[in-house]
C-alpha cells in the first residue's frame, strides 16, 4: 500500500490512473483546480475500492503556493511514495503565435509550473532515497511541428528537464518516468478531427502502472508510438521543414 499524489487529477489519463492505483489498494491524494469534480471522483473511488482518497486544491501557476501545497499534502498523508504529474494545457497554436499571453500560459503550465513543483518533490524524494516521479510529457515534444510547436516546445523542455532530473536522482534510487502518450480518447480529443490509433485511457493507465513497476525511464504509450516518432524524428530537417504536419 502506497500513498500516491496525482497532480491534475481530473484529466482523462489521471482519472484512469487513479482507478488503476486504487484497484491495487493505494491511497490517493487528488490535486487540481476543480475541487467539486475531484470530490466526486474521490467519493466514487472510496466506495469502489475502500481506499483513502483526499482532495487538495492545486493551482499550477501559483508558484508561491507550491511549497505550502506540498507540505499540506505531506501532513495529510504522513508520507508520499509517488507523484504523477498529469496536467497540461494544449492551448491554441494560432492564438499563441499572435497573443503572447496564450503562449505564456502554454509554456508556464506545461513547463515552468512543472519545474517548480517537481523541484520540491525531487528534494523530498532525494532525502528519502525512495519514491517515483511519473510525469506526462508528450510525443509533441519530440519534434517541432508548425501545428503545435508552442505546446511541443514546452513539453520538449519538460522532457529534457526530466532527463537531467533522472540523472541527478539515479544515485538516490528515485525513479523518474517520462511518459509520452500518443492519441488518447479523452475529453481533449473527443470529436477532434485527424485522430488515429486512439487508445483508451484505461489501457494507457495500465501500461503506465506497469512501467512504474518495471522502473522504465522513458516510455511511449501505446508502445508503437516509439516507432512512429522514430520515423518522424529521422526525417531530415531540410525535408521536414517543407511538410505540413
Amino acid at each position, binding site marked *: 500500500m502506497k500513498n500516491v499524489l496525482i497532480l491534475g487529477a481530473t484529466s482523462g489519463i489521471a482519472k484512469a490512473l487513479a482507478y488503476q492505483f486504487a484497484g491495487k489498494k493505494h491511497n490517493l491524494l487528488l490535486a487540481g483546480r476543480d475541487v467539486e*469534480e475531484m470530490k*466526486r471522483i474521490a467519493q466514487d473511488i472510496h466506495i469502489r475500492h475502500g481506499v483513502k482518497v483526499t482532495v487538495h486544491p492545486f493551482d499550477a501557476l501559483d508558484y508561491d503556493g507550491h511549497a505550502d501545497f506540498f507540505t499540506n499534502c505531506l501532513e495529510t498523508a504522513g508520507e508520499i511514495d509517488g507523484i504523477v504529474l498529469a496536467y497540461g494545457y494544449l492551448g491554441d497554436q494560432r492564438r499563441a503565435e499572435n497573443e503572447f499571453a496564450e503562449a505564456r500560459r502554454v509554456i508556464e503550465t506545461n513547463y515552468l509550473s512543472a519545474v517548480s513543483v517537481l523541484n520540491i518533490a525531487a528534494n523530498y524524494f532525494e532525502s528519502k532515497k525512495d519514491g517515483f516521479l511519473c510525469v506526462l510529457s508528450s510525443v509533441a515534444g519530440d519534434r517541432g511541428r508548425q501545428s503545435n510547436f508552442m505546446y511541443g516546445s514546452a513539453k520538449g523542455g519538460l522532457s529534457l528537464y526530466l532527463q537531467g532530473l533522472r540523472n541527478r536522482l539515479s544515485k538516490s534510487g528515485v525513479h523518474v518516468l517520462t511518459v509520452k502518450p500518443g492519441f488518447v480518447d479523452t475529453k481533449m480529443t473527443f*470529436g477532434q478531427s485527424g485522430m488515429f490509433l486512439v487508445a483508451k485511457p484505461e489501457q494507457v493507465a495500465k501500461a503506465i502502472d506497469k512501467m512504474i513497476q518495471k522502473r522504465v525511464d522513458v516510455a511511449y504509450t501505446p508502445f508503437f508510438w516509439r516507432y512512429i516518432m522514430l520515423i518522424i524524428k529521422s526525417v531530415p530537417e531540410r525535408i521536414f521543414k517543407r511538410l505540413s504536419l
Partner: protein
Amino acid sequence: MIKHKESLIAGWGNYPAEVCNVYRPDRVRDITELIASGAQPHYISRGLGRSYGDTALNHGSGVLLHTEFARFVHFDEQTGILECEAGVSFEEIIEHFLPRGWFLPVTPGTKFVTVGGAIANDVHGKNHHVDGTFSQHVLDFKLLLASGEIVHCSREEQSDLFYATIGGVGLTGVILTARFRLIPVESAYLEVDYLKAKNLDHAFELFAQTNEKYQYSVAWIDCLSKGDNLGRSVLMLGNHAPASKVKTGGDPLRIKNKPKFNVPFNFPSFVLNRWSIRAFNFAYYNIHQNEKSKIVDYDSFFYPLDSVHNWNRAYGKKGFVQYQAVFPPETSRQGLTEMLKRLSQSGRSSFLAVLKSSGEQNGGLLSFPFKGYTLALDIPLHDDGLFPFLRELDELVAAHGGRIYLAKDSEASPATFANMYPDLAKFQAVKAAVDPNNVFSSSQARRLGIVEESR
C-alpha cells in the same frame, strides 16, 4: 463548449441505424452550456445502447453519452440504499456490491444497462410478478431540465415529473443521479427448478401454481411448435440460494470467472434461418428435463446471453427486431395463441421467445408492464415484409387490450401507440410544462408522435 462526433449509430437490434451528433459530456455544466447554446435542436441521453430500436437515437440531432457520469455517490451498508450517477451500469453494481452481500432489486436479461436507462425504460425482470419494475425500488432522482434547473423528484416531491420520467424514455430531462434500494443476499447463486410445459395452457397453469413460491420465473417458449403443442415451453423458476446450499468451497458471494465469447463481426444473414432456428428450439425443449433444486450462478441465471459479447451480430448486418407485448389476464390465452399462430404461419421465427407472467401496473405514465402475460421475441430482419407483419401484430395486440414496449419498438405507428398508452396525454402535459420546446426528443418520440415534430 464540448465537441461532438458525427456517427452512424443504432440500438441493440442494429435497426434502424441513424447519423447522430454524439456528445460525451463529463460535467453537468457541459450539458447545461450545450443546451443553452442551441447547438442542436434536440438531445436524448444514451447509456449502453441496449434498447433495441430508436429509443436512444436522434437523427441529425444530439445524443448525450453517459459514459462519464458513472460514479457512485453514496452507499449505506445498513439499509442497502445506493446513490449513483445515471451512467453506472448494473454490471458495476454487481461487481462492487454482490461480494458485500447485496444484489439488484430488479434486473433485465442483460447487466450491460445503466441505472438511467433502467429508470427511463422502467425495466422489469423475472421477478415482475412479485417485485414490480426497477423504478419501484427507486426512492428519488435528480433530473436536469431543459431550463438548466436541477430538480429532485420522488413520489412526494415533483411527483408528476417522477411518474413521467419513470418509463419516460429520456423525454423529460437528463437523469443525473438516483437513489434506490439493493436487496440483501447470502450468495451469488440461485436455487432453480425446471418444469416442462406441454403447451400454452399448461404453461399458464404452471405459472399460476408456482408464482407465489418463486421470486423469479420465466419460460423459454418454442414459438415454432404447432397444434396441440403450441406454446410448449421450459419454465425456469428460482430463488436466491442461501449460503448453506452453495457447495463451491469458496466464498458463496463470488463466482468463478467464466470464459467470454465474442461475435467479432456480423454473421451473414442466412446463418439464422427458419431451419436453424427450428433446430435450436427443438433441441432447447428436448434437452431440458424436469429438474429440482439446481444451484445456478447469477450470471448464468439472469444473463445467459451476456457471456457472448455482441451476440446481436449473429443476426447479420440487417439486424433484427425485438418484439414484446403484454396482454391482460382475460385475453392472454387468446392473444398469445393468435400471436404464436401468426408467427408460425408466416414462417417468421424467433430464436428465443420468452413468456412471463407480469404483476400490477405502477404509476409510470409510459411504463410498459401491467398484470397479465408478456411475450418477447427476436425476429431476424431478412426483408421489408417484416414491417407490415409487425403492424398486424400491433393491431392484434391492441385488439386484445395489450401493449408493446418502447425499449423494444422500432416500427409502431402513432395511432397504435396512443391506443395502447391511455396516459399519453397526461405525459405530454407534464412534458409541455417543463420542456415546451422539446429540447429532449428522440427519433422514436417523433416517429410515435410522443413529441410533435418541430420546425
